[in-house]
């Protein structure tokens, strides 16, 4: 009954697929920033695709990522499946930290809406909180997986350095 493990496994499968796709369609070598963007993009797509369902944030994330992969037609294929259910409403999402709203709660809900992808479209505070909860779980899964991979990579880096 390890649902969180299932979440992570789902994420890993999708991530490997997206990484592979992005890698095939891009020429080498890239500098660090481009690589980082590619990795982040692929993992965001994977996270949203793993959750591809009834959540607003996953659909918003997919449509937002779709704009970034304009040059990479191969990567769009994986988005198409989820995109068929999309209403493409959330193309302009601002991330603004400074608000001058009146009451504290209202200010913070505005901020939260700007953080969660697609949050600005949610009118009902109840649904917003539900979306946030779901989003946090998947973000955590993403962070866990990436951290594990990074740790493994550093260890193997040490091992190969020792051999030389």
């Amino acid at each position, binding site marked *: *009954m*390890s*649902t969180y*493990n*299932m*979440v*992570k*496994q789902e994420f*890993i*499968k999708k991530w*490997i697929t997206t*990484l*592979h796709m*992005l*890698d095939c369609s*891009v020429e*080498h070598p890239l500098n660090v*920033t481009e*690589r*980082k963007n590619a*990795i*982040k993009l*692929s*993992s965001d797509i994977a996270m949203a695709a793993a*959750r591809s*369902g*009834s959540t607003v944030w996953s659909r918003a994330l997919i449509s937002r990522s779709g704009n970034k992969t304009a040059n990479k037609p191969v990567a769009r294929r994986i988005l198409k499946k989820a995109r068929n259910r999309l209403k493409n409403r959330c193309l302009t999402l601002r991330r603004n930290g400074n608000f001058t709203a009146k009451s*504290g*709660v*209202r200010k*913070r*809900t505005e*901020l*939260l809406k700007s*953080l969660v992808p697609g949050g600005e479209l949610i009118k009902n*505070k*109840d649904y917003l*909180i*539900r979306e*946030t*909860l*779901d989003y*946090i*779980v*998947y973000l955590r899964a*993403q*962070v*866990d*997986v*990436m*951290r594990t*991979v*990074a*740790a*493994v*990579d550093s260890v*193997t880096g040490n*091992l*190969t350095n020792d*051999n030389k």
Partner: protein
Amino acid sequence: MDLTGGFGPRSGVGPVTDDEFRQLVTTMPPENTGGSFTALLEMPVTQAMELLHFADSSSSQANITKLAGDNIAPPHDPFGTLTFPSNSLLLDRAARFSVIATEQNGYISSADTPSSSANLDGGVKAEPSETDSFSENQNSKHNKRKEREKKGKSSMKKTKSSVEEDKLPYVHVRARRGQATDNHSLAERARREKINARMKLLQELVPGCDKIQGTALVLDEIINHVQSLQRQVEMLSMRLAAVNPRTDFNLDTILASESGSLMDGTFNGESYHQLQQWPYDGYHQPEWGREEDHHQDFSNQVKMEL
């Protein structure tokens, strides 16, 4: 509706004993309108205890493999369990929460996560102490947050944001003494209680959040948590990009490490085979022995390939 009094400060990281949980559960109803809360939970208390029994058995197992401190473990330890062993339980709850949501067409059964609150204090407070130096900024942010909490004003304002039709199932709300009982305010109160229930669940998911009174500060914590998670993703992807010469890094390493970390200390036969049946099987030779020797085999494999 104040539930935070029921969950007192818990020291130690061990699994919750039955007595503690019973104590927590029995102190809950007298403090508030227990009827409405359990109605909101849509689950009797006994079922919650059952869930916690399951948590006990698996958390004790997770605790065996836990080591404090080190994030970068020596090779013969599974990586993933090292950092968030008891968090995985909590996230299990939350993940089941979201999985159930999809099954019920978007209706979340809030039943699971409150029972994990007892595990929360022990499990999640271990989180800041176990992050490595790379994410120490999260630690300092956590401390800053705590300072802000002490200075912060506790605002119990319940703002009436735009009200939509309440689509959630029917809820029994008990009117307290001296409160209006007409339909309008009953619906308002039901809605407010639902929102507060959800806030409680979010509180439980976000570490260190259950001691705070007031919606605004809780939202603050949640926002900080989401921001910190997003920043971690940024930094981790930068780190991965710096380490690997190509974007498509060794699939073997991912598969090998993930099968080790996902097992959580137990050899799970079926998911192991599941991993082996992935389409990338041709890339690696399945010489995986038992799980304890896993990482030594894996390091040899990597050496051969590089």
